[in-house]
């Protein structure tokens, strides 16, 4: 699994954001937008960019479609994280953490 996950790295920042947003629980477009924008203030996501990314993540098997929760609008497409998706998100997070630690070791962070 680890090797499979690393073949997806580095993840596009938006793809990573989407995976993190869905990690909170199955979700749909507008809610994903809200979650991402709440986490990264100042970002404004637009539909075409978002859904091409979601489509690719579905195609790569990192996300999968799931049933809408009871009472939700049935027209919404709900997606959730697959095991592979979770592994890739985790690998990307580790990669980024390693980068930050390197920056710290090079005393770059202190300069900033």
């Amino acid at each position: 699994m680890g090797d499979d996950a690393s073949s997806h790295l580095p993840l596009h920042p938006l793809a990573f954001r989407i995976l993190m947003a869905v990690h909170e629980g199955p979700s749909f477009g507008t809610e994903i937008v809200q979650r991402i924008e709440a986490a990264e203030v100042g970002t404004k996501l637009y539909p075409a960019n978002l859904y091409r990314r979601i489509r690719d993540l579905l195609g790569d098997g990192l996300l999968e479609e799931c049933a809408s929760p009871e009472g939700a609008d049935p027209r919404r497409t709900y997606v959730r994280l697959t095991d592979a998706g979770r592994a890739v998100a985790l690998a990307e997070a580790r990669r980024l953490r390693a980068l930050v630690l390197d920056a710290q070791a090079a005393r770059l962070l202190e300069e900033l």
Partner: protein
Amino acid sequence: MPKRLDSWKNSEVNRRDQRLYRVLLHLFPSAFRDRWAEDMEAVFRHRLEEATTRRARARVWITAVADTTGQAALEWWQHIGWIKGGDGMNGIGSEWKQAVRGLQRTPWITLTAVLTMALGIGANTAMFSVVDGVVLEPLPYDEPDGIVAVWPEANFNTAMVREIDEAAPALSDIAGISIWTAVLSEAGDPTEVDVARVTPSYFRILGVDAALGRTLTDDDGRPGAPSVVVLTHDLWVARFGADPDVLGRSIALSVEDATAHTVVGVMPNGYDPIPIGEAWTAVVDLGATVADDNTWFVNRRIGRIAPGATIEQADAQVASAAQRIGSQAPNQFDEADLRVAGVVRLKESMTEDARLALWGLLGAVGLVLLIACANVANLLLARGESRRTTLAVRAALGASRRSIARLLLIEASMIGVVGGLLGLWTAYGSLGLILSLAPPELPRIDQVSVDGGALAFAVTATLLATLLAGLWPAIRASRVDPGSDLTGATRAAAGRRSSRVISHGLVGLEMALAVVVALGSALMLRSLGELLTVDLGFEPEGVVVFRPNALGTGRSGVDAYRSLYGQVWANLQDEPGVESVGGVQVLTGSLNNWSFPTWPEGHVVAEGDGAPTVNFRAVLPGYFETLEIPLLSGRTIEETDRDDTEGVVVVNQTFVDTFWPDEDPIGRTLNIFSRNEPALRVVGVVGDIRQHGRARAPRPELYVPFMDWDWEMSAWMVVRTRTPDALESRLRAIVDEVDASAPIAGVQRLDEFFDQSASSTRFFAVLLSIFGFLGLALGAIGIYGVSSFAVARRAPEFGVRVALGATRFEVVRTAMLSGAAPIVLGAGVGLAASVVGTRWLRSYLFEVQPTDPLAIVLVLSALGGVAVAALAIPAWRAGRVDPARVLGGD
């Protein structure tokens, strides 16, 4: 509470925006669209709902269009790439990269093409935004297509509204509207407010409800009903601090003889009153017959088409009711009024005057876009020609014709998309300029913005322009033949010749279009010049005007009016800097008018004709002297002309010319309103003035003494002063000395006010000039591009000529002449086309004919100058060809 109203208007806008967004999604391949469109719309809706201002909505749209077009292009790339399965010389992916590289190799051509597209698309999008906002966008009311204006040409009384309501079942409701200047003396200084007195069905017809409290009900319009008022949101916020407890309060608002009104409702924020107004009160129907009802102030009517009925039925019913009413009150309507009785959609009636002009401007700027397309096509053709060898190499290496054409089309699309995006940005920037020039009477101009409609327009314009400019050059350039193009054989030479014919044809087309637009702008500029230099008959410069209002002072009766204006008039005389003071009941230069049937002594009225109507002005002494209107004979109105003296009147020159030509008018008499009224004696004749702005010719006019007239009229004070700023700052104090409760309105300089009467002409003239300039500039770029290219291609030929002894001058002449033919031909075609093209302008021209020789000469010389300059630079280069270098190369 006011929240609800915002969403009321927003939901209307959002529905339209979503429809447009759905159209935009068609840029995606159907597989993607079918799967994701619904989800994408939901996210877009979320974005829109966050945007509460027009500006924010415009930003959402601009980003959404960029997002959609960019992602759709990537999606297509991916989509086609999969089908083709891989790269190689025919792969789409490699073509995109090559296209970018190809464009980078000719940076100047790319930049010129992109900027040309940006200007064309930007100007068109900005202009379309104006047409969309003013003419196309539905009125913000419930089912706006069912709302009509009822017999807009006629003057109504309340009884007529009732009669037509009963006689026209195809109208479910009809409402009369009358705009009054009222005085609000509550919560702050007394100020004038525009109050719409309406039949209570008004709100039912528009389908709007109050945000707070209620609107008017039928009971409010019955005799004896208490006086109530509904406020606009803006007035409620400005004067009552958005206090919800204002409901049920009695406020000091004077309209006609009612001095207090109880507030019963506040309208939603953003609700646009029709036609204007800051508050609404009810017109009371006293149940009189049409002939006896003296409420002849109901000057606008709206109605709603009943369910199942058609506008044609309503039109016919109103027309026949009008005939009946006409026979009941024969003196009120003439034949012409009755003939046009009917209904017309409210939006059409509101935008009638502007519609033709705005469509004309859009047409003109559309021609500019065509010029831009011809230009880009020419640039791409030239580029294609210069790359024949490279493309032939590709063909020799196995690239198919289709793949070469696709490569060139991709290049054109890139130019189009970048040009389109830059164009949007240009539109966004230039809309402010257009709006700042717009005449104040242009309806709904405050609602214009670069919104979804404009963006959809920009996208369509970009696609069409790209196809128009890119398709033909791509097909042509793909017809390379490795055999001949690589060896310079005759077939290739023939191909070059035919492409030269096409380039010249395109230059001719550009010139023809540029002449049409430039001539339109020259005609409007000439009109503007005529308008600004027309003799007004008086001197507006140095005159300050304002109007104290006697209503709301707590005093009533004609004496209250006379004493207020008389005392203010007297006090103004003592002000430092003041040279003279006068007054008049209708401000000089305004479009308002009072005119009455008049019987000049000895003037015979033809059988069947009514008495002629003559403009009526009641003036305070000093009016003519203040405005410097020349006295031609007799005397003007004096302080001694009061109601205890004989009735006197001053007439203008047109009056004398019309009714008493070749006679001495002094001492003759006339009757106003009816022959039985006491006669007035003419004591003076004054010069004609442009009473209604610069463009309208003087009409017969009579002036009576304000102080001799038994009516409750307001007066505009007109003051000639050496120190206008000082006077303006003292006005409140001057009026306070007489009555502190009298509001002051309309303080302004007469010359500035008068200047507005040229604002429509100025608007069209400036916009058309910008378009004309753009057309000429793009045309010049086109000529320059084509002749530069021709010179470069013919360099060896020029080298031979020089080597054989031709002088530099001869070479320059040859180079220039070969480019001149299409320009001359194009200009000729353009002139002929202008005869048709400038016809729509006719009603906007002032003392200038569409075939004005001066305008034609101006345009042709501007065009000639530009063309010569654009031809001369490359030709000069041809004259400097070094034979040794260009021939040595071969």
